[in-house]
């Protein structure tokens, strides 16, 4: 098992990459390595390139050319259209209609689901009680259940709670479905916290919540970043729950995306579709690129100790 204290307290750069040190910049080994990486990177970038290029072309050009050729004439019209003009049914205000709804859904859902999952993970890792493992196993089983199967039972549960079509109901749904994987990550993270720290706090008289707030929270930024990234992506991209458990005035952005992409007005407007796709993906993409470093660091802490 890895040296857990090192994993938690040192930064990625300090733990550092392993392997042999590179000798010369242009050694055959480096050419091989970077060559391979660049080729693979191209495979990963190709779809992004296609999306961006297509979203900047006009429809006539798309029909003539191939998907890879750069735009002859750059137009931002598809972006404008996707954001503020594309129609879904009678509403012709594009994705902008759902943007703030998505934010309103995402913020409380991300916050509450992470808070609850972190407390779960903490209880499972540090305050193990009888039967905890059984519930945890059920939770992991839950990660495999196809969402569609749960639609009607959850409608009934929410109806009984009086939360159906309310924002609160949707937050609960996201909390429930985020719980398995998040609890797994938090549990693994917290169980890698040095036992001595925990014991010292107990001796000082700290209880369950005391240790959680004063010891655990401050030292678990990385795993929280991981959880935030996972949840932001998952909840932002969610279509099914957003459309089934709310009303049109609260529909998230993905509903408009679905309507733009799946309804064809005469010809399929690929450029608008791609622009809409990119616009919808901007929020999670932004979160990723900004916090990439913390992500790996956090995952390291959460995953190493299975």
């Amino acid at each position, binding site marked *: 098992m890895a040296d857990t204290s090192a994993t938690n307290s040192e930064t990625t750069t300090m733990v550092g990459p392993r392997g042999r040190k590179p000798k010369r910049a242009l050694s055959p080994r480096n050419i091989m390595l970077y060559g391979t990486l660049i080729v693979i990177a191209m495979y990963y970038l190709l779809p992004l390139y296609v999306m961006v290029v297509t979203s900047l072309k006009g429809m006539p050009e798309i029909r003539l050319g191939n998907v890879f050729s750069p735009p002859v004439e750059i137009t931002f019209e598809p972006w404008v259209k996707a954001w503020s003009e594309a129609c879904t049914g009678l509403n012709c205000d594009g994705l902008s209609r759902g943007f703030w709804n998505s934010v309103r859904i995402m913020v409380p859902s991300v916050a509450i689901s992470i808070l609850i999952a972190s407390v779960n993970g903490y209880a499972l890792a540090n305050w193990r009680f009888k039967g905890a493992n059984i519930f945890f196993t059920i939770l992991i089983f839950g990660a495999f259940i196809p969402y569609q199967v749960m639609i009607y039972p959850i409608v009934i549960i*929410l109806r009984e709670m009086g939360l159906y079509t309310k924002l609160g109901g949707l937050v609960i749904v996201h909390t429930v479905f985020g719980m398995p994987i998040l609890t797994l990550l938090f549990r693994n993270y917290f169980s890698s916290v040095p036992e001595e720290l925990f014991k010292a706090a107990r001796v000082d008289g700290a209880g369950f919540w005391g240790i959680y707030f004063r010891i655990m929270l401050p030292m678990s930024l990385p795993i929280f970043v991981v959880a935030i990234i996972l949840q932001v992506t998952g909840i932002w991209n969610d279509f099914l729950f957003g459309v089934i458990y709310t009303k049109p005035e609260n529909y998230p952005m993905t509903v408009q995306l679905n309507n*733009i992409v*799946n309804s064809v007005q005469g010809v399929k407007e690929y450029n608008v579709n791609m622009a809409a796709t990119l616009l919808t993906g901007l929020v999670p993409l932004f979160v990723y690129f900004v916090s990439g470093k913390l992500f790996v660091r956090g995952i390291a802490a959460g995953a190493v100790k299975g």
Partner: protein
Amino acid sequence: MKLKTLAAALMLTAGIPLAAQATDLEVTHWWTSGGEAAAVAEFAKAFNDGGDKWVDGAIAGSGGVARPIIISRIIGGDPMGATQLNHGRQAEELVEAGLMLDLTEIAEAEGWRDLVNPVRLLDGCTVDGKIYCVPVNIHSPQWLWLSHEAYEKAGVAVPANWDEFVASAPKLREAGIVPLAMGQQSWQTQLAFDTMMVAVGGIDLYKSILSDKDAKAAASAEATAVFEAYAAARSLSEGSNVQDWNQATNMVITAKAGGQIMGDWAQGEFQVANQVAGEDYTCLPGLGVNEVIATGGDAFYFPKNDDPEITAAQKRMASQMISKEVQVAFNLKKGSLPIRGDVDLTAANDCMKKGLKILADGNILPDGVNVQSADTQGQIQDLMVEFWNSTDITAADAQKRYVAIIEDAD
């Protein structure tokens, strides 16, 4: 108790000026393509002009995506004000569970039974003698749409029936045109099959298989001929790599394909593309062989609601949808036929007039959606899409499996 008194009090105070009451009504539908959205806008306009507010809940992706949403909302106890559903078999259970508003009162007051033509459409809305939905249009699936430009390019005359169409296919191929445009979605392959059944197998065969669920008819030699014609048609659509029906229609509009078997809703797309029936395209009902049409169509249901204001608004919307002006405006945009025989459709184009004439002559068939359960339809669709796409399946194999489905049909 308290709530009820409150509601009663509200009703009393609001009772007299009810006509001027403005109520928001959420409407769920899956009409999001160009022609469809233009048509639904007519409903909304009429409703808004009446002083109420239409809150649009459009969900693209047809029944498969929209249905769980509609049903969840209804069983979740917070239903929308009105929702599109195909009438007939699909909504039966919701009505039986007492979740839908009974419209019998206004239907009788306005004499729907005398207005609606054919009256069978209203039967689709009727459960135990009560009316639960408003049929808004008549759609018929059995049409062949042909591009004049494509045939001009190939140097052959525009076919007048299915046999001529098949015979002209090689010429189209030579000109680099796909003879038959076909989308990949399973319901489109089923639609094509049912349509060929009318054209190749005849009206009696269609009726006994679809309405009477007669497995013997499905196994008959007449049916075999349909399967063989269908198998032969498979090669005609090679090269039409599209998914959606309207992408396939677009191939016909742009003369990339010679023709498409599709319902009369395709007309909305031709219209949006500024094409003129008879000049730019030709439509052949019943594939030009048996000039009959099935009278399926769309309908709106109004889920039950505790709020009397909403109930009143639902009734207002229902009677608007069936009114003369709205029927004309809506159906002209949608490319479908109006459900009442007494409207003035001088603005109708060639294809609609053909349809109206067939309707007036009474050459009508029941639509699969109305007589078969969704389950049976789904199984047929699975079979047809498999059959259409893999040439390993012979007509005889497909027929055997089809007979088995009809045997168990409900």
